């Protein structure tokens, strides 16, 4: 299940819903990761753009991997502005036994950071500034760059 919200996430309510949805599913483990906006570098908050068609495909692929291990994943993410100390991201894994969920949450959150089509901006003085230095080029980037293609041929 992938849920997108405008603005910050109601963490307690989302986690409660997810917990209650799976109470009779016979999962022995439920591990969640909550991402919260920290006060640093004098930002007022963060803002997000999401490209949903590719995010949905990315999520479906991870759901299939989870299913192959008898597990399921859930995710919630914010669109638009999220202020300091509010949360923008929740990922969760439910699995029959703990090891699968503990290992899966790590792989799934790391690949989310490297691959999910979401763009982050710092909010500063009412401006939205792309967080370029903290962003990761998706695998295979540079396909349309002659410079990059020549480098790859070397």
């Amino acid at each position, binding site marked *: 299940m992938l849920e997108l919200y405008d603005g910050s996430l109601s963490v307690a309510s989302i986690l409660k819903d997810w917990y209650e949805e799976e109470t009779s599913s016979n999962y022995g483990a439920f591990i969640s990761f909550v*991402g919260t906006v920290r006060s640093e570098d004098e930002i007022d908050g963060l803002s*997000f*753009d*999401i*490209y949903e*068609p*590719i995010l949905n*495909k990315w999520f479906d692929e991870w759901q299939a991997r989870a299913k192959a291990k008898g597990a399921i994943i859930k995710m919630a*993410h914010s669109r638009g502005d999220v202020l300091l100390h509010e949360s*923008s*991201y929740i990922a969760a894994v439910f699995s029959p036994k703990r090891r699968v969920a503990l290992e899966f949450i790590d792989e799934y*959150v790391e690949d*989310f*950071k*490297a*691959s*999910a*089509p*979401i*763009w*982050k*901006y710092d909010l500063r003085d009412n401006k939205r500034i*792309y*967080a*370029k230095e*903290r*962003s*990761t*080029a*998706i*695998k*295979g*980037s*540079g*396909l*349309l*760059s*002659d*410079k*990059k*293609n020549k480098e790859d041929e070397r």
Partner: protein
Amino acid sequence: MVRVEFLGPIQRETMELNITNLNELATILKDDKEMQEWLENSAVAVNDTLVNNRNFTLVSGDKVSLLPPVCGG
């Protein structure tokens, strides 16, 4: 016509082009100075699937998307 979309922080209007593969798109964009850095760090999707081959054939109605570096969470 092939529709070319620039996602996230790439501030650029959608283009409608008569092109038959991604090499032709690279040729059209290579003289655009503002696009050079984005071309180096962006991934390319055709009809919402990432592609890794510049010879990828495009037909009228296809959608090409450029995805710059990401940072969710």
